């Protein structure tokens, strides 16, 4: 089972690596060739899974690690000084950033998956995707070594947009500190979110990956949110009641929940339902008795479910999230993200939908839905 299936299909002898025989006139190379230029290699399978089989999580250096000091040098003194600084401090590893616990949790899920399915490539694959200049590469690699992370793949684009590379890697989720890049990714159909460093750090589980999602404009589209913003709460309730049996449209993170669900089923299949190392949560301001029904019906129709669904009916999300302690919580409203971060929850902003057009008010009371 160790032969790369791609090679077997091509029927090539993986050992024949000497210079090619006399040209048949077709030895020109162009990047449009469907077959990989470097694909047909020796018999051993690469350690990292093939991007199309794995769940690829692209993470930027600024959220995987803490780089505030370096950011400051960049903003105050410009790129040349910034690079000089990085090289000077090359042997000083960065401290963990907001995405670090999430990445570590992904790695422990991988360990469990490898134990149960040693031949499978359905694993998390973490790729470091950064705008950084390759000069910072050595420091980043030193840091990855220091923290013993299993990250073998990276793109340092030296300032060019990483979006093309995200697509080339079949990226399932992109986490960055830069809202613009996240927005660009979202517009290209890639699930993405902006992460923020919590002010205090609460402990998260090392054995169970916990991912929490807001409902509207994250798992679902922002259609109901639009009604609420335009016509107010009563209209929203009325609309949801009338459309209870109409499915909501999907949101940017629906696909990611789906991939988590697929991996969960792999654990269930081997008898690990109760101690599954992946747990998902829906944390929504909708009410269980009314507007929440439409959300549940939609999830069910999609064949998705979250392990827990919390309908807050407008109550603040902070305390609930503090209890859950997710490795990451996705919300489309900065107000909620900030509230969560204040209480120590690792939260990520999904800049999608109508909520982005409304500047958030910190002292907003009841955003009951």
């Amino acid at each position: 089972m160790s032969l790369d299936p791609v090679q077997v299909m091509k029927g090539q002898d993986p050992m024949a690596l000497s210079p090619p025989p006399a040209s048949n006139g077709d030895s020109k190379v162009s990047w449009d060739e469907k077959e990989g230029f470097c694909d047909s290699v020796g018999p051993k399978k690469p350690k990292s899974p093939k991007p199309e089989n794995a769940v690829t999580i692209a993470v930027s250096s600024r959220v995987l690690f803490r780089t505030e000091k370096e950011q400051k040098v960049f903003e105050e003194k410009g790129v040349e000084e910034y690079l000089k600084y990085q090289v000077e401090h090359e042997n000083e590893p960065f401290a963990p950033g907001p995405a670090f616990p999430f990445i570590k949790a992904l790695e422990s899920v991988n360990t469990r998956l490898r134990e149960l399915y040693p031949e499978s490539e359905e694993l998390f694959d973490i790729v470091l995707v950064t705008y950084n200049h390759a000069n910072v590469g050595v420091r980043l690699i030193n840091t990855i070594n220091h923290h013993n992370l299993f990250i073998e793949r990276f793109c340092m684009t030296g300032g060019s947009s990483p979006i093309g590379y995200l697509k080339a890697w079949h990226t399932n989720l992109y986490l960055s500190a830069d809202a613009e890049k996240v927005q660009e990714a979202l517009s290209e159909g890639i699930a993405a979110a902006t992460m923020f460093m919590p002010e205090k750090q609460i402990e998260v589980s090392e054995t169970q990956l916990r991912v929490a999602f807001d409902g509207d404009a994250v798992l679902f589209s922002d259609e109901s949110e639009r009604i609420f913003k335009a016509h107010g709460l009563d209209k929203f309730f009325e609309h949801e009641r009338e459309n209870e049996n109409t499915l909501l449209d999907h949101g940017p993170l629906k696909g990611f929940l789906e991939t988590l669900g697929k991996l969960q089923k792999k654990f269930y299949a081997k008898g690990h339902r109760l101690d599954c190392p992946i747990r998902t949560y829906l944390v929504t301001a909708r009410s269980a008795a009314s507007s929440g029904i439409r959300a549940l019906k939609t999830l069910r129709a999609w064949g998705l479910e979250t392990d827990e669904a919390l309908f807050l009916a407008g109550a603040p999300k902070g305390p609930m999230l503090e209890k859950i302690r997710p490795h990451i919580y996705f919300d489309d409203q900065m107000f909620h993200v900030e509230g969560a971060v204040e209480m120590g929850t690792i939260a990520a902003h999904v800049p999608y939908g109508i909520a982005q057009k409304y500047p958030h008010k910190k002292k907003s009371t009841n955003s009951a839905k």
Partner: protein
Amino acid sequence: MDPQSDCTLVTAVSCHDIFDLQTGQSDSSPLAKGTAFAFIKAVQSVNERLVKLSEKQTLLFEVILLGKDCEEQAKSKIFDSAKYYDLEIGKFCFCSKEKFERTLQENHVKLFLSSDRDDVHSALKAGVPAALLCQQADQQVQNQLKVLFSGDLIGLTEDSTEYLKDLGFNDVQIHNFKAAKGRIQEFAMLIGEMRRRFGCEDSPLHTILMTVWGSRDICATALKTLRAWGLDVDEAFCLAGAPCTPILTVLQPHILWDDGLHNLKET
């Protein structure tokens, strides 16, 4: 320009790559553009920028056109077309197929570029540094010369050949790869010097390191080696065995220097 000057980056390109000599054309019209066209134009803009920085610039690209077994008629067409397109070609070398490698050696070519893998291999065998010239998907877009180096080759050290053995390469091949590293050095140093003349942003020359199979530590070794040679690459990729075609399709490099390490597609 003295082609023997150490600072001139003498690059030889086959006329079959510069122009499309296959498709028939009328006597009056110039030859159609070939694969290398975008490369030459990009090289010219690098030279322009270098000269702008310092008029007495000696560190420049010099492009030599190499014609293998060209008929007399084709030769004049080539001259005329080069003039028509305003191509800065330092020398036109026409030779027979047999004298091909010799011509490269005699002209102190620092880099021979061809889109034909066989030609690249013959040149390498004759000790001439050679790399693959890549077809650009969009000939118009490039205003930067993009040079890609292999991290698997440059990051190769005595201790790190295990993973190549695991991949199926034999000792002879590994020995050849080690020799290849030496060939790249001179070119990399010149490119590094050129690159340093420009700032981080708005450079007409863009350098990339791609490690296809090596681990991140191989990549780190490659980065440090290049830095020691005076070249700080702009972009770096570490693929850990992932298919490189999708990435290369986005990158669209002009020059791919891997000494045949990734040249594994059998016909």
